[in-house]
Protein backbone atom coordinates (compact mmCIF):
# COMPACT_ATOMS: atom_id res chain seq x y z
CA UNK A 1 0.00 0.00 0.00
CA UNK A 2 2.74 2.45 1.04
CA UNK A 3 6.00 2.05 -0.80
CA UNK A 4 9.03 4.17 0.06
CA UNK A 5 12.01 3.84 -2.26
CA UNK A 6 15.43 5.41 -1.77
CA UNK A 7 14.09 8.46 0.02
CA UNK A 8 16.54 11.22 0.95
CA UNK A 9 15.34 14.25 2.88
CA UNK A 10 16.52 16.85 5.35
CA UNK A 11 16.30 20.38 6.68
CA UNK A 12 18.14 23.17 4.88
CA UNK A 13 21.66 22.04 4.14
CA UNK A 14 21.50 19.16 6.61
CA UNK A 15 20.53 15.84 5.10
CA UNK A 16 18.83 13.57 7.62
CA UNK A 17 17.51 10.60 5.62
CA UNK A 18 19.74 8.56 3.36
CA UNK A 19 18.26 6.18 0.85
CA UNK A 20 15.41 4.89 3.02
CA UNK A 21 13.29 1.95 1.79
CA UNK A 22 10.12 0.94 3.59
CA UNK A 23 6.77 -0.66 2.84
CA UNK A 24 3.49 -0.91 4.70
CA UNK A 25 0.74 -3.26 3.54
CA UNK A 26 -2.98 -2.83 4.12
CA UNK A 27 -4.20 -3.58 7.66
CA UNK A 28 -0.64 -4.06 8.85
CA UNK A 29 1.11 -2.69 11.94
CA UNK A 30 4.68 -1.69 11.20
CA UNK A 31 7.05 -0.36 13.83
CA UNK A 32 9.87 2.07 13.21
CA UNK A 33 12.39 2.07 16.03
CA UNK A 34 15.84 3.46 16.67
CA UNK A 35 17.71 5.89 18.91
CA UNK A 36 17.12 9.64 19.17
CA UNK A 37 18.19 11.49 16.06
CA UNK A 38 17.96 8.42 13.84
CA UNK A 39 15.53 10.22 11.52
CA UNK A 40 12.29 8.42 12.42
CA UNK A 41 10.31 11.61 12.94
CA UNK A 42 11.84 13.15 9.82
CA UNK A 43 10.76 10.12 7.80
CA UNK A 44 7.14 10.51 8.95
CA UNK A 45 7.31 14.22 8.23
CA UNK A 46 8.65 13.50 4.75
CA UNK A 47 5.87 10.99 4.11
CA UNK A 48 3.15 13.47 5.10
CA UNK A 49 4.69 16.28 3.06
CA UNK A 50 5.93 18.40 5.96
CA UNK A 51 9.57 17.95 4.91
CA UNK A 52 10.51 18.06 1.21
CA UNK A 53 11.82 14.84 -0.32
CA UNK A 54 15.06 15.40 -2.24
CA UNK A 55 15.47 12.07 -3.88
CA UNK A 56 13.62 8.78 -4.12
CA UNK A 57 9.90 8.20 -4.37
CA UNK A 58 6.86 7.53 -2.22
CA UNK A 59 3.93 5.62 -3.67
CA UNK A 60 0.63 5.28 -1.82
CA UNK A 61 -2.21 3.10 -3.13
CA UNK A 62 -0.56 3.13 -6.54
CA UNK A 63 -0.28 6.92 -6.70
CA UNK A 64 3.03 8.75 -6.63
CA UNK A 65 2.80 11.19 -3.70
CA UNK A 66 6.40 12.41 -3.79
CA UNK A 67 6.39 16.19 -3.46
CA UNK A 68 2.63 16.45 -2.92
CA UNK A 69 1.30 19.01 -0.45
CA UNK A 70 0.37 18.05 3.11
CA UNK A 71 -3.33 18.62 2.40
CA UNK A 72 -3.30 16.47 -0.74
CA UNK A 73 -1.61 13.59 1.07
CA UNK A 74 -4.26 13.80 3.80
CA UNK A 75 -6.92 13.62 1.08
CA UNK A 76 -5.35 10.46 -0.30
CA UNK A 77 -5.73 8.73 3.05
CA UNK A 78 -2.60 9.15 5.14
CA UNK A 79 -3.12 10.54 8.62
CA UNK A 80 -0.17 11.79 10.66
CA UNK A 81 -0.36 12.02 14.46
CA UNK A 82 2.59 14.34 14.90
CA UNK A 83 5.28 14.46 17.54
CA UNK A 84 4.01 16.30 20.59
CA UNK A 85 0.43 15.43 19.53
CA UNK A 86 -0.32 19.01 18.40
CA UNK A 87 -3.91 19.04 19.61
CA UNK A 88 -5.71 22.36 19.35
CA UNK A 89 -5.20 23.21 23.01
CA UNK A 90 -7.91 25.85 23.43
CA UNK A 91 -10.59 23.60 21.97
CA UNK A 92 -12.57 20.76 23.52
CA UNK A 93 -12.07 17.09 22.77
CA UNK A 94 -15.21 17.14 20.67
CA UNK A 95 -14.03 20.10 18.56
CA UNK A 96 -10.63 18.48 18.10
CA UNK A 97 -12.33 15.32 16.86
CA UNK A 98 -14.62 17.32 14.58
CA UNK A 99 -11.58 19.01 13.09
CA UNK A 100 -10.08 15.57 12.52
CA UNK A 101 -13.08 14.82 10.34
CA UNK A 102 -13.11 18.30 8.80
CA UNK A 103 -11.85 17.30 5.41
CA UNK A 104 -14.16 14.35 4.78
CA UNK A 105 -17.05 15.94 6.73
CA UNK A 106 -17.09 13.04 9.13
CA UNK A 107 -18.95 13.94 12.31
CA UNK A 108 -19.41 10.40 13.57
CA UNK A 109 -17.31 10.48 16.72
CA UNK A 110 -18.89 7.36 18.24
CA UNK A 111 -16.61 5.09 16.29
CA UNK A 112 -13.44 6.56 17.80
CA UNK A 113 -15.04 6.87 21.23
CA UNK A 114 -15.66 3.11 21.11
CA UNK A 115 -11.94 2.73 20.64
CA UNK A 116 -11.03 5.08 23.50
CA UNK A 117 -14.04 5.15 25.85
CA UNK A 118 -12.22 7.47 28.27
CA UNK A 119 -12.60 10.26 25.73
CA UNK A 120 -16.35 9.86 25.93
CA UNK A 121 -16.37 11.33 29.44
CA UNK A 122 -14.14 14.18 28.36
CA UNK A 123 -15.93 15.43 25.24
CA UNK A 124 -16.50 18.95 26.53
CA UNK A 125 -13.14 19.28 28.26
CA UNK A 126 -10.50 21.58 26.83
CA UNK A 127 -7.65 19.35 25.68
CA UNK A 128 -4.95 21.56 27.17
CA UNK A 129 -6.12 20.57 30.65
CA UNK A 130 -6.09 16.79 30.13
CA UNK A 131 -3.45 14.25 31.12
CA UNK A 132 -0.81 13.20 28.60
CA UNK A 133 -2.44 9.82 28.06
CA UNK A 134 -5.84 11.31 27.34
CA UNK A 135 -4.24 13.82 25.01
CA UNK A 136 -2.52 11.02 23.09
CA UNK A 137 -5.81 9.11 22.84
CA UNK A 138 -7.47 12.27 21.57
CA UNK A 139 -4.69 12.84 19.03
CA UNK A 140 -4.98 9.30 17.67
CA UNK A 141 -8.77 9.50 17.66
CA UNK A 142 -8.55 12.80 15.80
CA UNK A 143 -6.23 11.18 13.29
CA UNK A 144 -8.74 8.39 12.74
CA UNK A 145 -11.66 10.75 12.12
CA UNK A 146 -10.47 11.22 8.54
CA UNK A 147 -10.96 7.46 8.03
CA UNK A 148 -7.43 7.07 6.69
CA UNK A 149 -6.01 3.95 5.07
CA UNK A 150 -2.79 4.56 6.96
CA UNK A 151 -2.19 6.29 10.28
CA UNK A 152 1.33 7.28 11.23
CA UNK A 153 1.84 7.76 14.96
CA UNK A 154 4.94 9.55 16.15
CA UNK A 155 6.34 8.79 19.62
CA UNK A 156 3.17 7.33 21.01
CA UNK A 157 4.64 6.75 24.48
CA UNK A 158 6.39 10.09 24.92
CA UNK A 159 5.93 11.30 28.47
CA UNK A 160 3.33 8.68 29.33
CA UNK A 161 3.13 6.18 32.18
CA UNK A 162 3.82 2.56 31.09
CA UNK A 163 0.31 1.43 32.01
CA UNK A 164 -1.21 4.08 29.74
CA UNK A 165 1.18 3.19 26.92
CA UNK A 166 0.07 -0.42 27.22
CA UNK A 167 -3.58 0.61 27.07
CA UNK A 168 -3.11 2.73 23.94
CA UNK A 169 -0.83 0.29 22.16
CA UNK A 170 -3.40 -2.39 22.90
CA UNK A 171 -5.85 -0.55 20.65
CA UNK A 172 -3.56 -0.55 17.62
CA UNK A 173 -4.58 -4.09 16.65
CA UNK A 174 -8.24 -2.97 16.60
CA UNK A 175 -7.33 0.00 14.44
CA UNK A 176 -5.47 -2.21 11.97
CA UNK A 177 -8.31 -4.76 11.96
CA UNK A 178 -10.83 -2.04 11.14
CA UNK A 179 -8.98 -1.21 7.94
CA UNK A 180 -6.38 1.39 8.87
CA UNK A 181 -2.75 0.29 8.67
CA UNK A 182 -0.46 1.66 11.39
CA UNK A 183 3.07 2.96 11.03
CA UNK A 184 4.30 3.40 14.59
CA UNK A 185 7.40 5.33 15.61
CA UNK A 186 8.30 4.34 19.13
CA UNK A 187 11.09 4.64 21.70
CA UNK A 188 9.71 1.77 23.72
CA UNK A 189 11.22 -0.90 21.50
CA UNK A 190 9.89 -3.82 23.49
CA UNK A 191 6.29 -2.61 23.32
CA UNK A 192 6.57 -1.63 19.67
CA UNK A 193 8.05 -4.92 18.49
CA UNK A 194 5.50 -6.86 20.51
CA UNK A 195 2.49 -5.23 18.86
CA UNK A 196 3.90 -4.90 15.33
CA UNK A 197 4.06 -7.53 12.64
CA UNK A 198 7.10 -6.09 10.92
CA UNK A 199 9.65 -3.53 11.98
CA UNK A 200 12.41 -1.29 10.70
CA UNK A 201 15.39 -0.20 12.76
CA UNK A 202 16.87 3.18 11.85
CA UNK A 203 20.23 4.60 12.84
CA UNK A 204 21.76 7.91 11.68
CA UNK A 205 19.25 8.34 8.89
CA UNK A 206 19.47 4.86 7.41
CA UNK A 207 17.48 1.68 7.78
CA UNK A 208 19.95 -0.75 9.33
CA UNK A 209 17.70 -3.73 10.04
CA UNK A 210 14.24 -4.79 9.04
CA UNK A 211 12.01 -7.80 9.09
CA UNK A 212 9.56 -9.77 11.19
CA UNK A 213 9.07 -8.01 14.53
CA UNK A 214 9.30 -11.21 16.54
CA UNK A 215 12.58 -12.15 14.88
CA UNK A 216 13.99 -8.66 15.51
CA UNK A 217 12.89 -8.80 19.12
CA UNK A 218 14.92 -11.99 19.58
CA UNK A 219 17.95 -10.60 17.75
CA UNK A 220 20.94 -10.22 20.08
CA UNK A 221 21.93 -6.87 18.56
CA UNK A 222 18.47 -5.45 19.32
CA UNK A 223 18.45 -6.95 22.76
CA UNK A 224 21.83 -5.44 23.53
CA UNK A 225 21.32 -1.98 22.01
CA UNK A 226 17.71 -1.29 22.84
CA UNK A 227 16.50 -3.62 25.52
CA UNK A 228 19.54 -3.57 27.80
CA UNK A 229 19.81 -7.33 27.78
CA UNK A 230 23.47 -8.31 27.72
Amino acid at each position, binding site marked *: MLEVKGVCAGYGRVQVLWDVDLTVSANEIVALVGPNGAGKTTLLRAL*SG*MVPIRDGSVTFLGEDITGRS*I*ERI*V*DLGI*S*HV*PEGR*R*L*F*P*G*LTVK*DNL*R*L*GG*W*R*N*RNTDIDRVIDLFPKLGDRLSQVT*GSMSGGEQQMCAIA*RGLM*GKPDLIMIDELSMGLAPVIVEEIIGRLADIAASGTAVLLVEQDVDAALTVAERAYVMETGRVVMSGNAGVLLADPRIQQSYLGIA
Partner: protein
Amino acid sequence: MTGFLQATVYGLLQGGLLALVAVGFSLVWGVMNVVNLSHGAFVVLGAYVGWQLNTSLGLDPFLGMVIVALVLFCIGYAVQRFLINLVVNGPIFITLLLTFGLELLLVQGMNIVFTANYQSIPTSYAGNAIVLGGIQVPLGRLLAFLLAVGITVLLVKVMANTRIGMSIMATGMDRGAARLMGIRARHVYALTFGIATALAGMAGTMVGTVGTFNPAAAGGFTLLSFVIAVLGGLGNMYGAMVGGLLMGLVQAWGGYYLSGTWVNALAFLVLVIVLMFRPSGLVGKAFYAARVEV
Protein backbone atom coordinates in the same frame (compact mmCIF):
# COMPACT_ATOMS: atom_id res chain seq x y z
CA MET B 1 -25.80 66.70 32.57
CA THR B 2 -27.61 66.55 29.23
CA GLY B 3 -24.34 67.45 27.57
CA PHE B 4 -22.62 64.54 29.27
CA LEU B 5 -25.41 62.12 28.35
CA GLN B 6 -25.37 63.39 24.79
CA ALA B 7 -21.62 62.78 24.63
CA THR B 8 -22.10 59.30 26.09
CA VAL B 9 -24.75 58.35 23.56
CA TYR B 10 -22.66 59.77 20.77
CA GLY B 11 -19.61 57.87 22.05
CA LEU B 12 -21.47 54.57 22.21
CA LEU B 13 -22.83 54.98 18.69
CA GLN B 14 -19.41 55.92 17.36
CA GLY B 15 -17.83 53.07 19.37
CA GLY B 16 -19.98 50.43 17.72
CA LEU B 17 -18.82 51.64 14.35
CA LEU B 18 -15.19 51.71 15.51
CA ALA B 19 -15.59 48.10 16.64
CA LEU B 20 -16.50 47.09 13.09
CA VAL B 21 -13.57 49.12 11.77
CA ALA B 22 -11.22 47.20 14.06
CA VAL B 23 -12.62 43.67 14.17
CA GLY B 24 -11.04 42.57 10.90
CA PHE B 25 -7.70 43.95 11.95
CA SER B 26 -7.90 41.94 15.14
CA LEU B 27 -8.97 38.80 13.27
CA VAL B 28 -6.04 39.00 10.84
CA TRP B 29 -3.59 39.62 13.65
CA GLY B 30 -4.97 36.80 15.76
CA VAL B 31 -5.16 34.20 13.01
CA MET B 32 -2.10 34.98 10.91
CA ASN B 33 0.08 37.00 13.25
CA VAL B 34 0.12 39.74 10.62
CA VAL B 35 -0.17 43.34 11.79
CA ASN B 36 -1.95 44.67 8.75
CA LEU B 37 -0.85 48.28 8.33
CA SER B 38 -3.00 48.59 5.20
CA HIS B 39 -6.21 47.92 7.16
CA GLY B 40 -7.19 51.59 7.31
CA ALA B 41 -6.70 51.92 3.57
CA PHE B 42 -9.29 49.16 3.05
CA VAL B 43 -11.70 51.05 5.32
CA VAL B 44 -11.30 54.14 3.14
CA LEU B 45 -11.45 52.06 -0.05
CA GLY B 46 -14.77 50.65 1.16
CA ALA B 47 -16.02 54.17 1.74
CA TYR B 48 -15.06 55.15 -1.81
CA VAL B 49 -16.68 52.09 -3.35
CA GLY B 50 -19.87 52.89 -1.44
CA TRP B 51 -19.59 56.53 -2.49
CA GLN B 52 -19.05 55.60 -6.13
CA LEU B 53 -22.08 53.28 -6.08
CA ASN B 54 -24.11 56.11 -4.58
CA THR B 55 -22.98 58.86 -6.94
CA SER B 56 -23.07 56.90 -10.19
CA LEU B 57 -25.94 54.47 -9.55
CA GLY B 58 -27.79 56.30 -6.81
CA LEU B 59 -27.59 53.24 -4.60
CA ASP B 60 -28.44 53.76 -0.93
CA PRO B 61 -25.18 53.26 1.02
CA PHE B 62 -26.75 50.86 3.51
CA LEU B 63 -27.84 48.64 0.60
CA GLY B 64 -24.66 49.30 -1.39
CA MET B 65 -22.72 47.91 1.56
CA VAL B 66 -23.49 44.39 0.37
CA ILE B 67 -21.74 45.09 -2.92
CA VAL B 68 -18.95 46.88 -1.08
CA ALA B 69 -18.44 43.78 1.05
CA LEU B 70 -18.29 41.52 -2.01
CA VAL B 71 -15.85 43.77 -3.86
CA LEU B 72 -13.61 44.21 -0.85
CA PHE B 73 -13.72 40.49 -0.08
CA CYS B 74 -12.46 39.67 -3.56
CA ILE B 75 -9.70 42.27 -3.34
CA GLY B 76 -8.67 41.08 0.12
CA TYR B 77 -8.72 37.42 -0.90
CA ALA B 78 -6.48 38.13 -3.89
CA VAL B 79 -4.09 40.34 -1.93
CA GLN B 80 -3.56 37.63 0.67
CA ARG B 81 -3.46 34.72 -1.75
CA PHE B 82 -1.04 36.21 -4.22
CA LEU B 83 0.91 38.70 -2.14
CA ILE B 84 0.94 38.36 1.64
CA ASN B 85 0.95 34.54 1.54
CA LEU B 86 4.39 34.78 -0.07
CA VAL B 87 5.87 36.15 3.15
CA VAL B 88 3.30 35.18 5.77
CA ASN B 89 5.70 32.77 7.46
CA GLY B 90 8.54 35.27 7.45
CA PRO B 91 9.53 37.52 10.36
CA ILE B 92 6.81 39.99 11.42
CA PHE B 93 9.04 42.83 10.20
CA ILE B 94 8.63 41.64 6.60
CA THR B 95 4.84 41.54 6.78
CA LEU B 96 4.86 44.97 8.43
CA LEU B 97 6.92 46.36 5.55
CA LEU B 98 4.76 44.69 2.92
CA THR B 99 1.46 45.90 4.36
CA PHE B 100 2.95 49.35 4.90
CA GLY B 101 3.92 49.45 1.23
CA LEU B 102 0.46 48.25 0.30
CA GLU B 103 -1.04 51.06 2.38
CA LEU B 104 1.05 53.64 0.49
CA LEU B 105 -0.02 52.16 -2.84
CA LEU B 106 -3.70 52.11 -1.94
CA VAL B 107 -3.73 55.60 -0.44
CA GLN B 108 -1.83 57.17 -3.33
CA GLY B 109 -3.94 55.25 -5.80
CA MET B 110 -7.11 56.62 -4.20
CA ASN B 111 -5.58 60.11 -4.22
CA ILE B 112 -5.13 59.79 -7.98
CA VAL B 113 -8.52 58.25 -8.71
CA PHE B 114 -10.73 60.08 -6.22
CA THR B 115 -8.56 63.17 -5.43
CA ALA B 116 -7.67 64.16 -1.87
CA ASN B 117 -10.92 66.11 -1.35
CA TYR B 118 -13.16 65.21 1.54
CA GLN B 119 -16.23 63.26 0.50
CA SER B 120 -19.30 61.95 2.22
CA ILE B 121 -22.16 59.70 1.17
CA PRO B 122 -25.38 61.67 1.52
CA THR B 123 -28.71 60.08 2.39
CA SER B 124 -32.04 61.76 2.90
CA TYR B 125 -32.52 60.26 6.35
CA ALA B 126 -29.13 59.94 8.06
CA GLY B 127 -29.29 63.49 9.35
CA ASN B 128 -32.72 63.07 10.95
CA ALA B 129 -32.65 62.49 14.65
CA ILE B 130 -34.79 60.84 17.27
CA VAL B 131 -34.95 62.98 20.37
CA LEU B 132 -35.13 61.12 23.66
CA GLY B 133 -35.38 63.34 26.73
CA GLY B 134 -33.41 66.11 25.14
CA ILE B 135 -30.76 63.75 23.75
CA GLN B 136 -30.32 63.63 20.01
CA VAL B 137 -29.88 60.24 18.38
CA PRO B 138 -29.10 60.74 14.68
CA LEU B 139 -30.75 58.03 12.57
CA GLY B 140 -27.72 57.39 10.37
CA ARG B 141 -25.50 56.82 13.38
CA LEU B 142 -28.07 54.61 15.07
CA LEU B 143 -28.42 52.49 11.94
CA ALA B 144 -24.65 52.26 11.54
CA PHE B 145 -24.28 51.28 15.19
CA LEU B 146 -26.93 48.54 15.01
CA LEU B 147 -25.51 47.14 11.80
CA ALA B 148 -21.94 47.23 13.07
CA VAL B 149 -22.84 45.43 16.29
CA GLY B 150 -25.02 42.95 14.42
CA ILE B 151 -22.28 42.13 11.92
CA THR B 152 -19.69 41.67 14.68
CA VAL B 153 -21.98 39.31 16.62
CA LEU B 154 -22.71 37.42 13.40
CA LEU B 155 -18.99 37.09 12.76
CA VAL B 156 -18.44 35.58 16.21
CA LYS B 157 -21.26 33.09 15.57
CA VAL B 158 -19.86 32.17 12.17
CA MET B 159 -16.41 31.61 13.66
CA ALA B 160 -17.72 29.36 16.41
CA ASN B 161 -20.32 27.36 14.54
CA THR B 162 -19.46 26.88 10.90
CA ARG B 163 -17.06 24.70 9.00
CA ILE B 164 -15.21 27.71 7.62
CA GLY B 165 -15.05 29.34 11.05
CA MET B 166 -13.64 26.18 12.58
CA SER B 167 -10.96 25.92 9.91
CA ILE B 168 -9.99 29.56 10.47
CA MET B 169 -9.82 29.05 14.22
CA ALA B 170 -7.78 25.86 13.91
CA THR B 171 -5.35 27.44 11.45
CA GLY B 172 -4.92 30.37 13.84
CA MET B 173 -4.06 28.03 16.70
CA ASP B 174 -1.68 25.69 14.90
CA ARG B 175 -1.17 26.03 11.20
CA GLY B 176 0.84 22.82 10.87
CA ALA B 177 -1.70 20.72 12.75
CA ALA B 178 -4.54 22.29 10.77
CA ARG B 179 -2.85 21.29 7.53
CA LEU B 180 -2.55 17.74 8.85
CA MET B 181 -6.35 17.82 9.17
CA GLY B 182 -6.46 18.54 5.44
CA ILE B 183 -7.30 22.23 5.91
CA ARG B 184 -5.85 24.32 3.08
CA ALA B 185 -3.98 26.91 5.12
CA ARG B 186 -3.24 29.24 2.20
CA HIS B 187 -6.90 29.32 1.24
CA VAL B 188 -7.95 29.83 4.87
CA TYR B 189 -5.53 32.75 5.21
CA ALA B 190 -6.90 34.31 2.04
CA LEU B 191 -10.49 33.82 3.29
CA THR B 192 -9.60 35.38 6.64
CA PHE B 193 -8.05 38.41 4.99
CA GLY B 194 -10.99 38.70 2.60
CA ILE B 195 -13.46 38.63 5.50
CA ALA B 196 -11.39 41.28 7.29
CA THR B 197 -11.31 43.61 4.29
CA ALA B 198 -15.03 43.06 3.63
CA LEU B 199 -15.83 44.10 7.20
CA ALA B 200 -13.45 47.05 6.92
CA GLY B 201 -15.14 48.09 3.69
CA MET B 202 -18.62 47.96 5.21
CA ALA B 203 -17.40 49.96 8.18
CA GLY B 204 -15.88 52.44 5.74
CA THR B 205 -19.15 52.92 3.89
CA MET B 206 -20.94 53.63 7.14
CA VAL B 207 -18.21 56.06 8.19
CA GLY B 208 -18.92 57.80 4.89
CA THR B 209 -22.62 58.13 5.66
CA VAL B 210 -22.18 59.64 9.12
CA GLY B 211 -19.12 61.78 8.42
CA THR B 212 -16.48 62.66 5.88
CA PHE B 213 -13.46 60.80 4.60
CA ASN B 214 -10.50 61.19 2.27
CA PRO B 215 -7.56 58.91 1.41
CA ALA B 216 -5.38 60.45 4.11
CA ALA B 217 -7.76 59.13 6.78
CA ALA B 218 -6.40 55.59 6.24
CA GLY B 219 -3.54 55.93 8.71
CA GLY B 220 -5.88 57.10 11.46
CA PHE B 221 -8.16 54.08 11.00
CA THR B 222 -5.19 51.70 11.17
CA LEU B 223 -3.98 53.34 14.36
CA LEU B 224 -7.45 53.19 15.93
CA SER B 225 -7.80 49.55 14.92
CA PHE B 226 -4.48 48.79 16.55
CA VAL B 227 -5.46 50.44 19.81
CA ILE B 228 -8.91 48.81 19.84
CA ALA B 229 -7.57 45.33 19.00
CA VAL B 230 -4.97 45.49 21.77
CA LEU B 231 -7.45 47.05 24.22
CA GLY B 232 -9.97 44.29 23.78
CA GLY B 233 -7.58 41.37 23.40
CA LEU B 234 -5.88 40.24 20.21
CA GLY B 235 -7.86 38.07 17.88
CA ASN B 236 -10.84 38.23 20.18
CA MET B 237 -13.82 39.53 18.24
CA TYR B 238 -15.90 40.43 21.29
CA GLY B 239 -12.75 42.12 22.50
CA ALA B 240 -12.82 44.37 19.46
CA MET B 241 -16.43 45.21 20.33
CA VAL B 242 -15.62 46.15 23.93
CA GLY B 243 -12.46 47.97 22.85
CA GLY B 244 -14.38 49.86 20.18
CA LEU B 245 -17.14 50.95 22.55
CA LEU B 246 -14.60 52.07 25.16
CA MET B 247 -12.63 53.97 22.54
CA GLY B 248 -15.80 55.67 21.29
CA LEU B 249 -16.72 56.72 24.84
CA VAL B 250 -13.21 57.95 25.63
CA GLN B 251 -13.15 60.03 22.46
CA ALA B 252 -16.60 61.47 23.08
CA TRP B 253 -15.94 62.29 26.74
CA GLY B 254 -12.50 63.61 25.88
CA GLY B 255 -14.03 65.78 23.19
CA TYR B 256 -16.64 67.05 25.62
CA TYR B 257 -14.31 67.97 28.47
CA LEU B 258 -10.96 68.62 26.81
CA SER B 259 -9.73 70.58 23.86
CA GLY B 260 -9.32 68.80 20.53
CA THR B 261 -5.74 67.55 20.45
CA TRP B 262 -5.96 65.97 23.89
CA VAL B 263 -8.46 63.40 22.67
CA ASN B 264 -5.86 61.18 20.96
CA ALA B 265 -3.52 61.40 23.93
CA LEU B 266 -6.41 60.30 26.14
CA ALA B 267 -7.09 57.30 23.89
CA PHE B 268 -3.54 56.07 24.30
CA LEU B 269 -3.55 56.85 28.03
CA VAL B 270 -6.51 54.52 28.39
CA LEU B 271 -4.64 51.87 26.42
CA VAL B 272 -1.60 52.18 28.69
CA ILE B 273 -3.72 51.99 31.84
CA VAL B 274 -5.69 48.97 30.63
CA LEU B 275 -2.53 47.11 29.64
CA MET B 276 -0.96 47.86 33.04
CA PHE B 277 -3.74 45.98 34.78
CA ARG B 278 -4.86 43.54 32.08
CA PRO B 279 -1.91 42.79 29.80
CA SER B 280 -3.94 40.48 27.59
CA GLY B 281 -6.65 43.07 26.98
CA LEU B 282 -10.08 43.69 28.50
CA VAL B 283 -11.67 40.49 27.25
CA GLY B 284 -8.48 38.49 26.83
CA LYS B 285 -6.54 37.26 23.85
CA ALA B 286 -8.40 34.63 21.92
CA PHE B 287 -6.15 31.81 20.81
CA TYR B 288 -3.03 33.85 21.23
CA ALA B 289 -1.80 32.15 24.39
CA ALA B 290 -2.65 28.78 22.90
CA ARG B 291 -1.05 29.45 19.59
CA VAL B 292 1.76 27.35 18.20
CA GLU B 293 4.24 28.86 15.78
CA VAL B 294 5.44 26.63 12.97
